[in-house]
């Protein structure tokens, strides 16, 4: 559902940092300074969720950030859902579905009597409208095109029947993560307007939706208010409101949770997470998760037409070099030191969370610098001056490596990678840039290596599509536009397999194909997976209970493929009033003291200059 998001785990970009800097030189930001106040009410039925990433757009055709998808799935229903327990298919607004004998038609039974939040009936016609809009749209294809690749048209013969016609047998027809939009609202948003359409609420009005919660208010960079939808077709949630508060720093978010300003904190860094353990009233959850991080290579940037672009080092086209780098990286240490042990070393692009699809390679690449050195020697990369190897054509093995300023984990990981590469005679020049800037560079092929990650959807189609030749960057109106491929991997055998799995309706056969593709990527190494990380979440168990993990029993509590927790969370009875007496930690005080001292020093330095009142004493 939010697989189209490269997940940004921490912290906004320079703008936010600049704000922090404006407050204090050392940047010890008190949690209070960072905390918005969406509403004065602190009633028990408002769940305050701390997040580190603002939504990038409330328009589902535009947004790509993980947080945006959380908002979309709260606002808009889908035909089917992923079950909380095990990601199996569960009914959404469709209660049952049948495939025709010739595999060309899918018929969905839509619940009767549903209403949008403004009272207008929600029917199969809305679903048909949404699918046709994506199928026939251009801009609408960006986020949802991969789901409708085989769908030729959508029809609604009756308010409770939706028919999707497909060009060939299609395996993922029960996993269509396309948000069903209200036709009576969106028909007024033309094709030319949709790209700039904000979909944000006007004063006092919520966005018209059909999910359990509705977007009521958004203040960019501060908070997002979601209120309960009275017309939701499912069970009415106990919560009146879910407020997402955006923090620019994980430490501040941890403090806010301790002080009770928020009830839930998502995507914590390991160090902050560990500091929340054993705090009375707080439950910490190292949730198993579907995300991975990787070291990605520019394997030869080119447009989808095959025309080379960008500034990538041609040396990285050599699969032997990429494989050797795989042996040079100590993934276990990365897990221990960067993730604080809360994750597992990475291997293939479908994470082990999806056990039946994940391939555990039979030829595991482990940490073995001696082997890496031997492979590099054998491939003709001889050690040159300054302990940097030199390619047979005389070029030194010196590459650019981009980390992301948005993520402390990323910046830390690239430091380690730089060290590991140096140990085998490869020089990496680290530059940390914002994710926006990196997206741009990747799209234009203006990079050698970078560190980033994906959150992988239960259906593998989307993730696999990020390595196809067709998903390389393309020309649009004369300028290069980024597509999903960020390694520019292009292999006709892989593309054939991708096409094959897109039509394999037998689950076992499809999984076999998917595993072959994973092995292919593992051996060709356009990515070297560093780790599969846990989603580190913590919440005030003295205030709220009833979170539903996905998958059971130790999966994520929020930011799932579904809205199970929001629908089931209930306030703990008011008897145990929250203890706010914890006060400020000593470290915070020390940090503030240091900040004050430095500011005092700065002021002293600036005020030093006395007014020139004396007379010229004519010293020569």
């Amino acid at each position, binding site marked *: 559902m939010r697989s189209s998001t490269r997940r940004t785990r921490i912290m906004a970009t320079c703008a936010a940092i600049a704000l922090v800097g404006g407050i204090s030189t050392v*940047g010890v930001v008190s949690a209070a300074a960072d905390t918005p106040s969406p509403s004065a009410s602190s009633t028990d039925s408002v769940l305050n969720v701390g997040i580190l990433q603002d939504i990038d757009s409330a328009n589902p055709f535009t947004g790509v950030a993980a947080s945006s998808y959380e908002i979309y799935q709260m606002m808009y229903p889908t035909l089917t859902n992923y079950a909380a327990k095990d990601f199996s298919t569960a009914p959404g607004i469709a209660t049952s579905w049948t495939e025709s004998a010739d595999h060309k038609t899918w018929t969905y039974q839509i619940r009767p009597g549903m209403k949008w939040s403004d009272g207008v009936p929600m029917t199969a016609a809305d679903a048909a409208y949404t699918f046709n809009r994506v199928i026939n749209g251009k801009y609408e294809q960006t986020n949802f095109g991969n789901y409708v690749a085989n769908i030729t048209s959508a029809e609604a013969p009756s308010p409770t029947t939706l028919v999707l016609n497909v060009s060939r047998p299609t395996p993922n027809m029960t996993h269509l993560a396309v948000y069903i939009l209200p036709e009576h609202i969106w028909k007024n948003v033309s094709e030319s307007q949709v790209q700039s359409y904000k979909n944000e609420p006007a004063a006092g009005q919520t966005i018209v939706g059909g999910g359990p919660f509705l977007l009521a208010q958004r203040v960019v960079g501060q908070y997002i208010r979601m209120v309960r939808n009275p017309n939701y077709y499912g069970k009415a949630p106990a919560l009146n409101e879910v407020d997402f508060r955006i923090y620019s720093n994980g430490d501040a978010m941890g*403090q806010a949770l301790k002080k009770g300003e928020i009830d839930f904190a998502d995507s914590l860094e390991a160090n902050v997470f560990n500091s929340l353990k054993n705090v009375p009233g707080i439950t910490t959850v190292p949730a198993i998760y579907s995300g991975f991080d990787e070291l990605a290579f520019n394997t030869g940037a080119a447009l989808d037409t095959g025309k080379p672009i960008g500034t990538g080092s041609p040396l990285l086209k050599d699969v032997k070099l990429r494989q050797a780098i795989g042996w040079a990286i100590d993934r276990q240490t990365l897990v221990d030191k960067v993730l604080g042990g809360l994750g597992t070393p990475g291997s293939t692009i479908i994470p082990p969370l999806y056990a039946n699809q994940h391939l555990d390679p039979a030829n595991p690449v482990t940490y073995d610098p001696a082997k890496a050195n031997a492979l590099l020697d054998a491939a003709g990369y001889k050690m040159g001056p300054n302990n940097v190897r030199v390619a047979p054509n005389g070029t030194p093995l010196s590459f650019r490596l981009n980390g992301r300023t948005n993520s402390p984990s990323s910046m830390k990981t690239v430091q380690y990678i730089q060290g590991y590469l140096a140990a085998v005679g490869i020089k990496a020049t680290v530059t940390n840039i914002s994710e926006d800037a990196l997206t741009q560079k990747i799209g234009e092929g203006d990079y050698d290596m970078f560190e980033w990650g994906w959150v992988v959807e239960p259906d593998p189609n989307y993730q696999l599509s990020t390595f196809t030749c067709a998903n390389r960057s393309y020309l649009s109106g004369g300028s290069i536009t980024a597509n999903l491929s960020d390694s520019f991997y292009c292999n006709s055998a892989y593309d054939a397999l991708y096409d094959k799995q897109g039509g394999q309706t037998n689950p076992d056969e499809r999984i076999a194909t998917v595993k072959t593709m994973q092995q292919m990527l593992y051996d060709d190494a356009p990515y070297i997976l560093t780790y599969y990380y846990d989603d580190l979440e913590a919440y005030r168990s003295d205030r709220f209970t009833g979170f539903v993990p996905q998958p059971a029993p130790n999966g994520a509590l929020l930011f799932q493929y579904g809205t199970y927790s929001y629908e089931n969370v209930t306030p703990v009875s008011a008897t145990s009033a929250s203890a706010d007496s914890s006060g400020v930690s000593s470290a915070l005080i020390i940090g503030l003291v240091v900040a004050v001292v430095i500011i005092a020093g700065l002021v*002293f330095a600036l005020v030093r200059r006395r007014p*020139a*009142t004396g007379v010229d004493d*004519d010293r020569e």
Partner: protein
Amino acid sequence: MTATTPEARPRSARAVTWTRRRRSWARTAKAFGRSRSGMLGLGIFIVFALLALLAPLLFPASELDVTKATGPIFGPPSLTYWLGTDDSGRSVLALVVWGARISLLVGLCATVLSMVIGTSMGIAAGHYRGFRGGALDRLTDWFLVIPYLPLAIVMASVLGRSLLNIIIVIGVTSWPGTARLIRAQTLTVEGRPYLERAKALGAGNLHQMGKHVLPNVMPLVLANTTLAVSISILSETTLSFLGLGDPDAVSWGSILNSAFSAGAISQGAWWYLAAPGVCVVLVVLGFNLIGRALEDILDPYGDGA
């Protein structure tokens, strides 16, 4: 002036000037030596300069490599790690000592750049009249009113993150104050009669500025430089803390940055924040003491001497 005297003393105009300048220097040095706070500042500076120079001998560069770190994560100060360890298990003491190199280097280089720009702009703005002087003056005003931090952040983001760029950013954003000061002094110097005489004898603009004004504003430049160093070091710390420094170079600001993003506050790892913070304070204090003492001695407007 009719014939050369047999004395061995050099008699050329240049030599006379230099003798006078040497004496002036000696007098200044002596006065400085009498200033207790000035000497304290100098002592602090020398200690940190020595640490910076000797860093590779005290701590091998491999101590900065996260992949070779062996210490505990967020270990408190102990006998092995005097200032504790960071989130990767590196010794904070080693980081701080290596950080001194970058912080001092950037601070000094940026100050030199800022002084060169500020002094030439100031002298030129004071020397030229009419349109040229006015234009230079407005330019200084313009730079003076631009909020410093946003400009520095924008410049650092545009130029990219490297040591040289951070020096340029600080140098280019911090000169207008100096230019103002120098311009004022230039105006008083230009009012003196001997410049009138020089002009009458046909001295060009460059000659007047270079040979007559510059030597006279030099003491002020010097006093101002030491004060500007502390501001440059604070600026470097600020920009590095904001993540705009060279990611490969450890500086005090970048240590604070990593401490902050690694959650040192939540972890209670005070040593990780306090060590670089105290170093910044000490060095800034040191330069301010030196600057203040020098200003007392050299500033023509000062009440000190």
